[in-house]
């Protein structure tokens, strides 16, 4: 229960336990540094294999998703064949929300809101590789492996990614030794406190997944649909007039596009920055005068967002990074044209 307390409420540890954790952490580096080099390479190899397995395997599983004091149980069904990837995610607790993703679209069904949101999906590469050479990301994160564990009845390898500054989060992955699928995952802050967790309780790997398993349980009939128009123009290169003038060290711009979104009348500028591990999106769009949205910071699980308004434009930064990072980035956006 003491461990649990630490997990459930990171800010309030009884003193005895905190001492134990601190002394444990102090001992840790000694054992790791011995094989740091090979451990880091092995960790990166496992991460690449994990990403590829998640995209190329047929599997069905049930996992627990925890964030703060909130907990949900979900089922995931994933199919990959010549037709590409298809995935269905269903909440088993609360209202039966679903997200269905295929080659064309991402469909989110919210029975509690009586709403369906449809967005275009982007094709993604089957093979994922962390940036090479390894030093490019190792400047900002420490990679290591830390032995074995058993999750959902399967043997796993454990991989740790620790950030070296306060602008990034760390990760801990438990990866199935057999299939390389993710069995457990934790998002951690720089102090190694857990922010978010995924824990599979059951995972089955199949040769084939029947299509019926990927159909939504709800038709969404009579719901409000927010849908990307099929006639929407494809994304165009972004307006170079917008600049993000501050990013954490190691972040660079990946793409800058101007794209249509179902909720927005005018194309939205979407600028993507990454350090190879974390990704931050900056969205800039012209707002109707009478539309009032939340300004400031909102968290969605491990995702931080920060929104501000300037001269009729809304600037929002979204990322799996600490709030400081999205806030500083959103505040640093400058317009040359307006």
């Amino acid at each position: 229960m003491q461990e649990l307390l630490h997990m459930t409420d990171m800010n309030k540890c009884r003193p005895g336990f905190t001492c134990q954790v601190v002394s444990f952490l102090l001992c840790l580096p000694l054992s790791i540094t011995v094989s740091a080099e090979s451990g880091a390479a092995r960790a990166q190899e496992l991460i690449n294999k994990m990403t590829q397995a998640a995209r190329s395997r047929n599997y069905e599983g049930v996992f627990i998703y925890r964030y703060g004091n909130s907990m949900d149980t979900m089922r995931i069904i994933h199919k990959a064949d010549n037709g590409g990837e298809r995935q269905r995610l269903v909440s088993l607790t609360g209202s039966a929300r679903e997200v269905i993703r295929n080659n064309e679209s991402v469909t989110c069904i919210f029975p509690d809101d009586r709403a369906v949101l449809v967005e275009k999906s982007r094709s993604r590469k089957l093979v994922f590789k962390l940036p090479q050479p390894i030093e490019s990301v190792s400047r900002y994160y420490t990679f290591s492996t830390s032995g074995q564990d058993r999750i959902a009845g399967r043997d796993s390898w454990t991989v740790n990614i620790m950030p070296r500054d306060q602008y990034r989060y760390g990760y801990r992955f438990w990866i199935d030794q057999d299939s390389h699928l993710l069995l457990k995952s934790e998002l951690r802050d720089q102090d190694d406190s857990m922010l978010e967790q995924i824990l599979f309780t059951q995972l089955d790997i199949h040769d084939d997944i029947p299509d019926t398993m990927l159909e939504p349980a709800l038709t969404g009939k009579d719901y409000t649909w927010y849908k990307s128009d099929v006639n929407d123009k494809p994304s165009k290169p972004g307006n170079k007039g917008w600049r993000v003038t501050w990013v954490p060290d190691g972040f660079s711009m990946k793409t800058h596009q101007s794209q249509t979104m179902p909720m927005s009348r005018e194309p939205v500028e979407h600028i993507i920055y990454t350090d190879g591990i974390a990704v931050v999106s900056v969205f800039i769009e012209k707002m109707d005068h009478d539309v009032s949205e939340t300004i400031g910071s909102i968290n969605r699980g491990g995702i931080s967002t920060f929104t501000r308004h300037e001269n009729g434009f809304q600037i929002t930064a979204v990322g799996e990074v600490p709030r400081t990072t999205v806030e500083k980035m959103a505040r640093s956006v400058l317009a040359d044209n307006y």
Partner: protein
Amino acid sequence: MSKINQEDLSAFMDGELKDDTAGVIDQLLADVTARDTWMRYHLITEAMRQSLPTHLDRQLPASISDKLQNEPTVLRPARKKYSTYLKPAAGLAIAASVASVAIIGVQQQRQDVTPGLNSNPSIAAVQPNIPAARQMQNPVARPASIDNTRSAPNNRPVAVPQARGDSLNSRLNNYLINYNEYHADAGMQGMLPYARIVAHDRYE
């Protein structure tokens, strides 16, 4: 009622609370939220030990206590302010908790412009036990404070762009989807990103 101290609750579960000065037992008896926390802690413990049953009914304790409450011999006054199933709904889908409070205020006004919204039998069949939740989550509702500042809100039809404006932070959902989609090739993806959209926001 003061919020239950999670540290006390945890100590109580561990059997480490020598004398119950904090009134943990009293709070557990009186406070639905405290009982939920208590249950959640046990659930997490079970999950960590991997001894979760295949089927979990989180409403079961609530339905039992509801039944008990309707028994002829009532030994205590009914103290529940909210039914348990409403609690998750209260925070549901609205990242900004403020909005959920404000929306109640505009229900009356929105009812007349969105006729038939709650009249679909198939939906009722899907979620028979949370009609109130649906009311609160009306996707075209907007914070009352904002509506009140408008010149003639009642005369405006609920045009699609307007309804799209800020319902349930749907623009944020939109951003999240786009973020997720571009994330896949830009950086590492380990947290099953769409879990965050499926998850219910019971947190602040």
